[in-house]
């Protein structure tokens, strides 16, 4: 899993049917030092909000398990909103 931050939303009307039921959030990814490390567009199942630091699952089989489906082209799912992040014994600032 990865730690990221919700920085945007993506709206589409033409998409694969699976995505009709879910909203898509654009999340910055951060490395262990809190530096930017790309981004990913995720399905959200925990009602994360703009600016939230989140836990992102980026693996297809587990993503399908969470959504309760056997097939589907989905990988990235927001599975948690982070309250605290500790690295090397230090508390990282989380918004």
């Amino acid at each position, binding site marked *: 899993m990865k730690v990221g*931050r*919700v*920085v*945007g*939303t*993506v*709206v*589409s*009307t*033409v*998409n*694969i049917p699976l*995505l009709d039921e879910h909203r*898509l959030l*654009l999340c*910055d990814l951060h490395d262990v030092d809190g530096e930017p490390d790309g*981004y*990913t*567009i*995720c399905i959200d199942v925990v009602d994360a909000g*703009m*600016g939230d630091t989140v836990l992102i699952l980026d693996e*297809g089989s587990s*993503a399908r398990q969470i959504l309760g489906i056997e*097939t*589907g*082209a*989905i*990988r*990235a799912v927001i599975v948690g909103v982070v309250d605290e992040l500790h690295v090397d014994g230090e508390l990282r600032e989380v918004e």
Partner: protein
Amino acid sequence: MQLARVVGSVVATEKVEGLEGVRFLVIQPLDKNQEPAGRTVVAADAVHMAGSGELVYFVSSREAAEALPVRFVPVDHAITGIVDEVHLGVDS
């Protein structure tokens, strides 16, 4: 999933079994500000409607094939949606 711009198409008559009728488009992956990021790739068009110049999002690796009618096919990128709008907020 990542953002990309459709920049071309690929026509191939001889294909692996299971890929009949699948459209292949050349896409340029983009960063979140819609600037080109990395090399172009060929992606299967799972929405059947993406066209040249359109902003799309795509899924990579094993999950790309999940977007197609025949699931067990050798495809590693698939367009899964056409973007209407991207809203960026906070200090992105």
